[in-house]
């Protein structure tokens, strides 16, 4: 395998990624211009428009420059994580996001692990028990979970496990790792179930497809044990398409996190986004939109790389017949 081919592929992906992010940044920047009122209004965020303040804002955001220059200057600042100050709190936007990143990251990682556990394992089990009661139950459950958006799931879980049978806390973040784990279980579940259902269907279908392949039959016919074939053959091959979708799962997570964080008041960046939209905190909205876009794009790149690592066919594409 040539490392060059991989580097080339990564290089190409990176270029595409930079272009994509450039386009997104332009759209995000333009947000202040499509918002109702003047651009200064957008940056004022409801503060009285004293001449001094207007002057300061005009200077801060280069509002007297032509549109494209403004964009360029904005982008230059954005590249060093300077998105301006929140109109609501007057703090640098990046600081505020930094302070909020913790709970969101914890939630995201927790939910991601739950998703993998609740998605892949039952998916594989269902595929192995195809057409049995367990399979049907899992598949039906998956449709329900898939159709229940995180905020509804969150509220239902909240009602069931915090009100009816209060085993989990209804709000808050907790302190220390275990306490946080306990506090974030319901939100992470609410976030994970929908995506896990998607993953369950995906991995089940993929596993069924793989189990049907000739090479599985051939491996068995050669006398390899069932377990060996399941683990080394079926599971690994079934994982390939699962890995490819896992990158796009992150997009689901971000959308879902907005709702779950709101429903459980977790004070993460999802909630910050909602708060920023409610208060038209433009610099904050811009920074968050960029952050999320970049994270999603990077996650997709990672998924692609994982795909390359796990599936040799991609690696050798350039060379094989």
């Amino acid at each position, binding site marked *: 395998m040539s490392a060059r081919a991989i580097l080339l592929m990564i290089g190409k992906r990176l270029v595409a990624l930079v272009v994509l992010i450039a386009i997104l940044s332009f759209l995000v920047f333009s947000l202040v211009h499509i918002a109702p009122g003047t651009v200064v209004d957008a940056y004022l965020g409801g503060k009285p428009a004293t001449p001094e303040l207007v002057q300061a804002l005009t200077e801060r955001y280069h509002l007297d420059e032509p549109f494209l220059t403004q964009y360029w200057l904005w982008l230059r600042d954005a590249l060093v994580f300077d998105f301006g100050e929140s109109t609501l709190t007057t703090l640098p936007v990046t600081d505020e996001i930094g302070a909020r990143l913790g709970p969101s990251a914890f939630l995201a990682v927790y939910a991601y692990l739950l998703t993998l556990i609740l998605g892949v394992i039952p998916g594989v089990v269902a595929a192995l028990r195809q057409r049995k009661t367990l399979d049907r139950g899992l598949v039906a459950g998956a449709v329900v979970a898939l159709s229940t958006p995180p905020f509804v799931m969150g509220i239902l879980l909240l009602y069931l496990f915090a009100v009816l049978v209060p085993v989990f806390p209804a709000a808050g973040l907790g302190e220390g790792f275990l306490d946080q784990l306990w506090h974030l279980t319901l939100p992470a579940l609410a976030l994970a179930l929908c995506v896990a259902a998607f993953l369950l269907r995906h991995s089940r279908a993929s596993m069924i497809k793989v189990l049907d392949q*000739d090479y599985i039959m051939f491996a068995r016919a050669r006398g390899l044990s069932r377990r060996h074939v399941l683990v080394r053959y079926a599971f690994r091959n079934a994982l390939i398409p699962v890995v490819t979708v896992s990158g796009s799962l992150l997009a689901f997570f971000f959308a879902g996190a907005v709702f779950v964080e709101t429903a459980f008041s977790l004070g993460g960046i999802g909630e910050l986004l909602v708060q920023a939209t409610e208060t038209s905190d433009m610099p904050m909205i811009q920074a968050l939109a960029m952050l999320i876009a970049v994270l999603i794009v990077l996650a997709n790149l990672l998924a692609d790389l994982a795909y390359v690592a796990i599936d040799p*066919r991609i690696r050798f594409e350039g060379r094989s017949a």
Partner: protein
Amino acid sequence: MSPHTERVPASGPPVLDIEDMRIERAGTGDPIVTALDLRLAAGESVGIVGESGSGKSMSAKALIGLLPEGVVAKGSARFDGENLLDLSERQWRTIRGRQIGMIMQDPFTMLNPVMRCGRILEESLLAQRRLSRAERRAEAIRRLAEVGITDETVVDRYPFQLSGGMRQRVAIAAALARDPQVLIADEPSTALDVVTQREVLALIKRIQEARGMALILITHDLRVAFATCDRIQVLYAGSLVEAGRADDVRERPLHPYSQGLLLSEPPADRRVRQLVAIPGSVPSAAEVRDRCSFESRCRWARQVCRDGEPPLAVVGDDRRSRCVRLPEIEAEMAALLSKAEEREDGPAGSRSDDALIDVVNIQKVFRSGGRTVRAVDDVSISVRAGESVGIVGESGSGKTTLARMLVGLESPTGGEIVIDGIPVRRWRDLTTNERRRLRRTVQTVFQDPYSSLNPMRSVGWALKEAIVTHDRGATGVERRVGELLESVGLSPGYARRRPASLSGGERQRVAIARALAVEPRVLICDEPVSALDMSVQAQILNLLRQIRAERGISCLFITHDLSIVRQASEYLYVMHLGKVVESGPTESVLDHPRDDYTAQLLSSVPRPEEQWLTT
């Protein structure tokens, strides 16, 4: 033991003794295989021959204990004193791979795509043998050498980096890694090119003989079975209809079906006047329960044939047949066989000058992912009025690409095409009128009858569209649809049916009718029969021949099968790697090949002679 089966002593003590094996769907009890008997002596090779769906693969799977869920096997299959059909999963462990090995049809799907060939071999080796890493690798390399792969780097390659033949060799090595006594080979060469096919079969034969291993070779190709096996079992719709020594069956088939199959195979060495086709198409085992399975298509069928399933009677030395009327019809069958031997001489005289299609130095280069493929490289051919031109060549030689350029589905990267006097290098530049004329001159019949008809549209709809597209003001469309259907041997009632309810042969007939709807002057047939069952192939070849005779249209017949091309064409081009390597009147090219490649192709055509697999 079933009452009607008398055992015939086989050549040696059997390693595997199958008696009355039945395979059925667990839920409904629908049979898949109704009765299979087979006795396999050590070192012996038995061929199971049958058309698609006859239950060959299912039988193989039953014998290695890997029937799909919902399918069960009953009866007995004694191996080493135990009935294979009753074994538990735990007992199977000591048998699979170690006692009985299996290889399957498709080398492209049989090997784990994400595992290197070396790993595949190593993990197949017996686990008890504690070997170091290096030793395992050396063993893998040794095993590869046994199957004729001397390139050591293969152990570090992934399956998709190998050619089909190589993959099949790796698979064979893997299947033999635990040194089984019996090898079941389920169509091991079907997916391969003729040349590779011969190599792989020769390899299997060689190893079988060298190891003294018993072999069950499953194939749909009688010629392959004759050439490879000591004994033959013919399977039809799930039941064994005839069994006997290979030579005996070839010379004197004793069941109408075996005979029909034999006759419908176009001979490679001569042109026959007409192929003897079996009418209809293959039923499923469930449909022919409790009667002779071949009854519905048999020209000798009588009421007796419908009164219960006929027994498998001993009809000679190591010969069995399931035909109840055999004594009555044996003579008639023999007569038919000799009649089919008659050969027809190829058309005499030179080609006409009236070129309908003239292709000059045409080229097609595909570029994808940085690679360039010269699919068609500087090819010149011509098709004259009234003649049938054959193009033969192995897979990937550019035949289809050439045909597609002729009808504007692909545009050439160089060269010129003139059809009916119109230069058609770029279809886009043509006027509507010219295009219409071209469409009316050239029509196509595609390879795959299952997807060449729109599954959502009825047969009548498709034919009507073809008629109306070319003749907007057409009148009596319904009537013409009926006529078209009749001209391809279908009743007008078929107009209402959807493709899904048609058999492969019927679909191909409809596809031909659709092409004929515009009354073309040239019919391009791209492998029109290769997706069809053997017994149906002859029907279609006959139909094409009949249409040509009736309508006097030209034909460009593309195939990879030399025997078919001999029956279907008068002038022949041989293609190899995008180039025409040889051309000339079919008879003379096939009888006296001048090019090495043509000669190689010819020698690869399965034939019963011993030396087919050894040279």
